[in-house]
């Protein structure tokens, strides 16, 4: 900030104050922005450029890589891995829908019905965050373990027969099935859905509910016509905050899934860190980025909350 703004001389003070910012004052925002923006340019934008260049390189680890504008890599990568792409979008989409379904009642409960328990419930939503999410995901291995109480109960109730028939589980197992991966994704990203939902619900004036009731709306109608539309900003940002990270996640698929549940994140990770095929890995991550950005843009347009961005 401008530290040395001298008090105006007496003669000048007599004149009406004219707001003419000095050149130095005009530069203040740029100085404030400089370090942070530079950081993002060097460590966020520039890496994207490098990754773009990597994706059109050919070569091998021994001989070195060279830019040969080999766009074929994109097509090959997509052709080889489209099942994993589709699976990622399917799993992430299902997890997002489940998060909304499970998160809405809790957010609603905290915003309108909790009373003096509100802060306690909020703490209970946030606190699990602080136990490393990897530890908590490993805990799901214990919960869903073969022969464990959860599997046994679902088996006795014949739920697993139904989910197996639907292709979500295999036999009397839960671990290493699509259902386990989706369950893990839902669990890990649920708070990212609940918090925005809660924020937008909490802003709603409860007198609107009373007004709707006075106008003979049933609770269901009040929810459909008043509460839900007003919570749309929370629904939109919650959906984005769950879907985007879930689509690139590989932790849940690795810890709770099997080779049949590999998502695109698992492929990118192993291409980059194990197989060391950098061009394919780069191409895959650009395809993922493009798909996610397009879906997000379309979604935001349709949800009609462009001011969110």
């Amino acid at each position, binding site marked *: 900030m401008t530290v040395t703004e001298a008090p105006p001389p007496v003669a000048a003070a007599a004149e009406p104050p004219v707001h003419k910012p000095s050149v130095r004052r005009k530069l203040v*925002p740029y100085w404030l922005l400089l370090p942070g923006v530079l950081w993002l340019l060097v460590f966020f934008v520039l890496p994207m450029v490098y990754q773009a260049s990597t994706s059109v390189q050919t070569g091998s680890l021994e001989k070195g890589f060279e830019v040969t504008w080999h766009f074929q890599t994109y097509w090959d990568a997509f052709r080889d891995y489209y099942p994993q792409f589709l699976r990622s979008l399917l799993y992430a989409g299902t997890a997002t829908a489940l998060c909304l379904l499970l998160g809405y009642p809790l957010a609603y409960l905290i915003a309108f019905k909790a009373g003096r328990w509100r802060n306690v419930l909020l703490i209970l*939503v946030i606190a699990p965050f602080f136990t*490393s*999410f990897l*530890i908590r995901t490993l805990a799901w291995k214990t919960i869903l373990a073969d022969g464990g109480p959860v599997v046994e109960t679902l088996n006795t109730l014949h739920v697993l027969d139904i989910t197996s028939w639907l292709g979500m589980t295999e036999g009397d197992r839960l671990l290493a099935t699509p259902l386990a991966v989706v369950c893990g994704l839902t669990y890990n990203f649920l708070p990212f859905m609940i918090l925005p939902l809660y924020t937008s619900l909490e802003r709603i004036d409860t007198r609107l509910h009373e007004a709707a009731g006075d106008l003979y709306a049933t609770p269901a109608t009040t929810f459909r016509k008043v509460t839900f539309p007003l919570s749309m900003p929370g629904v939109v940002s919650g959906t984005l905050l769950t879907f985007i990270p879930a689509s690139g996640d590989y932790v849940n698929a690795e810890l709770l899934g099997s080779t049949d549940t590999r998502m695109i994140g698992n492929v990118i990770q192993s291409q980059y860190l194990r197989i060391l095929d*950098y061009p394919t890995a780069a191409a895959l991550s650009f395809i993922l980025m493009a798909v996610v950005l397009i879906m997000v843009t379309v979604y935001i347009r349709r949800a009609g909350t462009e001011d969110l961005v």
Partner: protein
Amino acid sequence: MQWLRRNLVVIAGLGTLAYLIVPNVVVTVFSFNNPNGRFNYAWQEFSLDAWKDPCGVADLCGSLSLSLQIAAWSTLGATVLGTMIAFALVRYRFRARGTINSLIFLPMAMPEIVMAASLLALFLNMGVELGFWTILIAHVMFCLSFVVAAVKARVLSMDPRLEEAARDLYAGPVQTFVRVTLPIAAPGIAAGALLSFALSFDDFIITNFNSGNTVTFPMFVWGSAQRGTPVQINVIGTAMFAIAVIVVVAGQVISNRRKKTALPH
């Protein structure tokens, strides 16, 4: 039946809460387990061994302290840089404002793995050795946007007339900033810092790509999932949960006290 219908929201909400809490309960219970074999997946018998010796596993506490250091430094970096950007964006009109807003938004709207991979592409191309510094650089980068968002929200809801009033009362720019602006913005800055710390401490995907042979705590847990999970991991998980709850509750109590003591004035 009537009762069930009336309390449907409460029941469903509490069900979701149980879904959120159950893994923590499991982590806590299994921290008292005396496992048979390398993996701590099945309950054997009660034991306090792991609690008596939380650092008893090679490299575990080293990785923990490394993660704490990285989280502390990246929180400091991201909070300072992010707060500056947030003030510039809210308080000044200048060209390129829209562009910079999108630049800040983009890291949040991108799957983490894309950023992780592209940073690795940069470091590989430049021949930078992966380790402490590359992790720190990456963490400051992705925490930055979250700080900007948190501080911006707070500064936006701040009444600019308070600062005008300070100036009318002959406070200089520095005095205005330190005694009026900063205290009002503080909750936003604190929220941003807390979020940075949590995000950095818990980050796995970006660290996995850019850590080389350096092992942070999440990397240790990840490795242990393959080699065998020591009970000590559950102990640390439980302790983290307990500390977080204590800190949050203490914060609540203090702010409630302040509100109460502030009233009589």
